[in-house]
């Protein structure tokens, strides 16, 4: 029997079926392109499904004072001014349209009294801004996009007799390598998880929408899919990654019982009145309001409590500080011995509102704690602590077109896998809207890129055979090292040495250990055959996790300051000089990570004027402030 590698031809291949990937695919199909969607899990199960709180968009439905400029400001503040300003601008401007569009696909958001989309408060957002559906917003988003794709397939079916004529979903399929023709993307190579069969998709444009990297950490809210595949594929294809030192540790992951360690307790628990207390029963967040935020946050419990009903005349409770601040605060409380036995603090709504209201407003939290932890959150507090949640860093892209930087062309990236939008720290709710805004842009520009191509790049057979060898290697080492052990060792290195609080010595140590792991991963083995063999799948993913971890560790060692999702014990505090610098990772010929400093793009005059000088003075260098003053004087 002749072995076959299935070969397909597409115009645009979208890797990832989360919010970003699906939105990109819709746009490419609407542009008339033959589109493939690839997903490691089943259709409709991507990570986006887990998002709870909502999608941020300045629609002004609840507070009419909200607009894109306020949203832009909040986003820049949240990211500590390290964001790519243009991405933050596009995001703030286009998010409302993208949300409204979802309604035309059939989404059913919660409503305000006058029938508009309701919006809720969330950490770091000045006004209620998150469109939501109870606490299952991600599910609504992904289901809506999934159903829109089905609807497009039905149109194609009516026209051609085949559902798959223009847009096809390859579920449970992993891409292991991008194939190039010179510096142009020519296709993608991968395998069907179910059967172990290989496939080659030839396409001149590839959109990466593969999500994040959290699986390299032990305590994480992320699923097995988050092995940084897209990050690694981009690197190997010659693209660059930025901001890899910035990882968001969500302040409130469950810490008890152990089996659910890491699973998220949505921020809306705090937005709706939940408070954090240490083991002494003290509401400790008041002690942790940093100077930059002093003006916006309440100083007494009374004022904080009044805010829930009268936000216009009171300052917000410190529980709603950006995530990095809350995560660090909890970390500190635990370290100083005021944590719970399981290493967390208490998050309490039970004493704050009536049981019916809790069940109504936080249904899936109620459900989750009841069924997973046997805890009734209407009667007792939850135990929470920081969990690795989101990677701000990712593929460096052109803000307008989502095209990857570096030498490669034809590669686009959107969603969590892309970098720049969130700077050093992402605000809650800004991811779901990011997926939609930049997913659409990536699909649109990938299609335009295909149209402009004079000649299609070609896949070289030798590259396909090489990719095949790499994929099969673990199976040819049946007695090689166990991939699960390797993953645990990697998680230990990252969690212990490149965690929330970082130190130069530990980071150097981590880099050394990562090198050792590299050698071991080169000898990883997988027992069994090719059919749905999770051990083999993990063995293949390990090399991606490793290279991405190396980027994070290297960049973390380089950045000698603390900002957002990067805290250096030996360099506490922000340094305005470092704000001007992006750390850019690429792969050199030998496959090692190469780190470079690049200047951050400079914000346009009309955008920087949206901020007041006192605020800017906390972030900018003296030279930049002089420039700002000159601008304002005009």
């Amino acid at each position, binding site marked *: 029997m002749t072995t076959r590698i299935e070969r*397909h031809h597409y115009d645009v291949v979208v890797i990832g079926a989360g919010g970003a990937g699906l939105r990109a695919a819709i746009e490419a199909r609407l542009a008339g392109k033959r589109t493939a969607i690839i997903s490691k*899990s089943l259709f409709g199960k991507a990570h986006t499904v887990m998002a709870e709180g909502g999608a941020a968009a300045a629609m002004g439905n609840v507070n009419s004072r909200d607009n894109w400029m306020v949203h832009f400001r909040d986003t820049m503040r949240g990211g500590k001014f390290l964001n790519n300003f243009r991405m933050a601008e596009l995001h703030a401007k286009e998010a409302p349209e993208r949300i409204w569009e979802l309604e035309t696909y059939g989404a059913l958001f919660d409503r305000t009294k006058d029938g508009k989309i309701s919006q809720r408060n969330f950490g770091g957002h000045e006004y209620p801004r998150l469109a939501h559906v109870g606490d299952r917003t991600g*599910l609504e988003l992904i289901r809506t996009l999934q159903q829109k794709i089905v609807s497009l397939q039905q149109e194609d079916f009516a026209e051609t007799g*085949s*559902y798959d004529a223009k847009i096809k979903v390859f579920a449970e399929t992993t891409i292991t390598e991008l194939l190039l023709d010179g510096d142009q993307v020519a296709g993608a190579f991968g395998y069907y998880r179910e059967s172990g069969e290989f496939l080659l998709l030839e396409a001149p444009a590839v959109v990466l929408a593969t999500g994040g990297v959290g699986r390299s950490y032990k305590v994480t809210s992320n699923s097995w899919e988050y092995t940084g595949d897209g990050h690694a594929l981009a690197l190997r294809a010659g693209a660059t990654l930025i901001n890899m030192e910035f990882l968001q540790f969500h302040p409130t992951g469950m810490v008890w019982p152990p089996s659910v360690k890491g699973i998220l307790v949505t921020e809306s628990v705090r937005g709706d009145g939940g408070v954090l207390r240490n083991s002494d029963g003290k509401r400790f967040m008041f002690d942790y309001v940093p100077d930059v935020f002093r003006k916006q946050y309440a100083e007494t419990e009374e004022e904080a409590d009044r805010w829930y009903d009268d936000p216009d005349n009171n300052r917000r409770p410190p529980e709603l500080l950006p995530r990095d601040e809350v995560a660090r605060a909890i970390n500190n409380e635990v370290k100083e011995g005021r944590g719970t036995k399981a290493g967390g603090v208490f998050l309490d709504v039970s004493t704050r509102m009536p049981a019916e209201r809790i069940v109504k407003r936080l249904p899936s939290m109620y459900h989750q704690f009841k*069924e997973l932890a046997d805890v009734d959150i209407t009667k007792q507090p939850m135990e929470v602590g920081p969990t690795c949640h989101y990677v701000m860093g990712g593929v460096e892209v052109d803000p307008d077109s989502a095209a990857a930087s570096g030498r490669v062309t034809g590669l686009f990236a959107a969603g969590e896998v892309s970098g720049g939008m969130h700077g050093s720290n992402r605000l809650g709710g800004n991811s779901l809207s990011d997926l939609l805004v930049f997913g659409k842009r990536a699909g649109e520009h990938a299609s335009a890129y295909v149209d402009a191509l004079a000649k299609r790049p070609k896949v070289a057979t030798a590259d396909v055979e090489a990719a*095949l060898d790499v994929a099969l290697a673990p199976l040819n080492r049946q007695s090689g090292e166990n991939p699960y052990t390797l993953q645990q060792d990697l998680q230990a290195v990252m969690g212990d040495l490149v965690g929330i609080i970082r130190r130069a010595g530990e980071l150097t140590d981590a880099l050394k250990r990562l090198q050792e792991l590299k050698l071991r991963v080169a000898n990883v083995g997988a027992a069994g055959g090719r059919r749905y063999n999770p051990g083999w799948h993990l063995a293949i993913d390990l090399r991606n996790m490793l290279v991405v971890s190396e980027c994070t560790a290297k960049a973390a060692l380089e950045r000698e300051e603390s900002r957002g999702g990067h805290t250096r014990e030996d360099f506490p505090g922000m340094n305005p000089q470092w704000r001007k610098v992006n750390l850019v990772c690429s792969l050199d010929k030998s496959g090692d990570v190469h780190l470079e400093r690049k200047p951050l793009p400079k914000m346009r005059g009309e955008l920087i004027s949206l901020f007041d000088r006192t605020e800017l003075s906390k972030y900018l260098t003296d030279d930049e402030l002089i420039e700002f003053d000159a601008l304002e004087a005009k």
Partner: protein
Amino acid sequence: MGTKRHFRVWRGDESGGDIQDYDVEVNDGEVVLDIIHRLQATQTPDLACRWNCKAGKCGSCSMEINGKPKLGCMTRMSTFEEDETVTITPLRTFPIIRDLVTDVTFNYEKARETPAFAPPAGVAPGQYRMKQVDVERSQEFRKCIECFLCQNTCHVVRDHEENKAAFSGPRYFIRAAELDMHPLDARTDRKDYAQAEQGLGFCNITKCCTEVCPEHIKITDNAIIPMKERVVDRRYDPLVWLGRKIFRRDQLDGSAHGDSMAPSTSVGVTGVAAGTPFSSARPSEAAPVRDDGRMDVAELALPQQGGPSPFGDDQELPLPPGEIVYNHPAPGKDDTGPKGDAH
């Protein structure tokens, strides 16, 4: 605090398999999925099982635990007796792929046949206005995490392969109901469709689907029964449906969309045989590796991608002579047929 517990797990593929025994450590507060992960990490790395969120949100980890359809990540070990053996088997209604993983294509196929939301004409994006009370009814059904436990449980298709073609199952009844109750959906024939195309008439309201739904959606009471009642309203004759508990397709009248929404008729569920290929339709057998550890690279262009030229999309024919790499078959050497790189 770990104790050893006895587990029995079905291992095998579509060619057959059996229950295997394992003794595994179980710790305080763990769920069944944790135990499967421990088995993978310590005893049998190739044990196949789907999961994603580990928090009951994605609906990937559906399995049968002691014969009951459940989510592995939401079944706490403390719900079993200390000395109870826990038996884990794959969903029974769907074809086996390997171990605990089944081919759930049936469900995606039915999803694809259910007509999508029809936006109201003349209402611009941003102008949608709906009352919370009006959206809540549909929102209940949109909580569905597509775990397909209800589909697996429903006796109409469980062990009745022959009904699959004509029966969409509870998951898609709630989808039809959701759209029927959507305040702004422009279609008015959702109930007719459910009756005529989805096989709603097969359902005899046993409520088994409601019982297993991990999202506690009241599938029968809130979706199926109202959908049935409305069909009755419309026809002004309750006996029409009571009299015919089981419909055959050709007995149904008013087949509104029968033409454009061709159902699958093939036995093996996947519609390839019926001419409507599915996303996950693929050869079931794993390909061998050559002696040198490589695999042959050959082309297989499938018809449903819009039929590209086998020579590539931008190839001008005839080819310049220098680029032609076709070798004439040499008699005696090529008896085994085409092999190797077809480039």
